[in-house]
């Protein structure tokens, strides 16, 4: 079962792994692999592919852990970014479009309860993002969230939402701009 670690403990284990400490690396895996597999499974079509990418992800983590800087990034952010990017790379390398299912629930943002943060997550960051997302138009909020969670491009989003590509770009760009000025205010 996943060991519960604080953010600092996780950061410490990741730094240790970067120095070649295999048991610290195991600790990182135990504490985060379920979350990262969840991230992979949102993007990839089946569990086998997702676990394959998860394996890749941790091999990358082992190799790159020495570059993790706890002063600059939260450990879970750093890990989620690798898992998500690896999943998207795999998704896009695998040719044709899977799932022609419309964006499920794209427009109704999960409520606060579903966003309850785990110990290792950066509660401040999650809270701030949610406050700022509230200020976006529903459409922008929905598509930015879908883009993050499912790893889809402008093109695919425009098709799903049945709007011109230019419209989709302007929704997301405007949303990103507003998000960023809110996040940094």
């Amino acid at each position, binding site marked *: 079962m996943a060991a519960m670690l604080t953010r600092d403990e996780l950061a410490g284990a990741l730094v240790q792994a970067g120095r070649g400490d295999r048991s610290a690396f195991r600790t990182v*895996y135990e504490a985060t692999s379920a979350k990262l597999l969840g991230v992979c499974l949102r993007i990839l079509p089946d569990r086998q592919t997702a676990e394959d990418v998860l394996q890749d992800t941790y091999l990358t983590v082992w190799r790159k852990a020495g570059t993790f800087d706890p002063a600059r990034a939260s450990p879970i952010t750093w890990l989620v970014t690798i898992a998500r990017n690896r999943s998207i790379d795999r998704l896009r390398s695998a040719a044709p479009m899977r799932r022609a299912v419309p964006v499920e629930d794209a427009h109704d943002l999960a409520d606060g309860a579903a966003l309850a943060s785990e110990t290792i997550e950066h509660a401040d960051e999650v809270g701030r993002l949610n406050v700022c997302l509230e200020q976006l138009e529903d459409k922008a909020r929905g598509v930015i969230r879908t883009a993050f969670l499912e*790893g889809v491009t402008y093109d695919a989003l425009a098709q799903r939402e049945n709007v011109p590509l230019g419209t989709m770009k302007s929704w997301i760009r405007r949303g990103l701009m507003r998000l960023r000025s809110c996040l940094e205010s």
Partner: protein
Amino acid sequence: MTESTTEEPRSDDARTLAGELALRVLSPDEERAARAREQADPAFAGEVEAWNAHLAAFAAEVQGVQPSAEVWPRIEAGIDPVANDAANDNGRLGFWRGWAIGSTGLLAASLVAVAVLIARPAPVSEPAPTPAGGVTRVATLTLSEGGAPAVTIAYDTATGNLFVAPTTAIAASDGVPHLWLVRPEGGVQLVGAIDGAEASHRTLSAALSGQAGTATAVAISMEAPGTTPPADAPRGPVVASGELQQL
């Protein structure tokens, strides 16, 4: 919105592009261009990092799913216990130094054989297996003209040591050979000038060593003496290249 837009519209554009890159909504071509900029422009790279930090908060709503029991053993098998053992560093270095010096003939040939064995004609869609901590990656660079083997390189991901052994003198009259990493997402990254006549080795910086662990290929360009090309684009002709393989 009626806010003043006089302040740095360009930096707003860059910030938005960084967000689009972090979100991964760009088309493949746009993404390649943006990745190249990320490599070349530290301020832009910082923007991408900031976006990653902000956006990762979305993952808070993702339910964890326990991986199957066989995932960890596969990961564990992929990380070489010797590689990260600092006590073995000297031995490894000695071995590789010996290899680099002796590599001009027989060993280079056998490395080519190894590379051929490893080189499966995998479809482009199947990314090469991720190099684990402490693997050795090798490449035989062949001349763009004629295809003769020109240089063999070996890179140790555990130590960051890069060995370069020319098999034929490539330091021609009209330029200084420069080594480049070809990134998996496209684009190139300058490693630096190399000795085109003698085997040499260097230890890559942290920034470069990560890229050397993931690069798909290496290439050599011939640059005018006394000049240094931009880090992401050779000025001179590419005279040799080869795929990086895991040994």
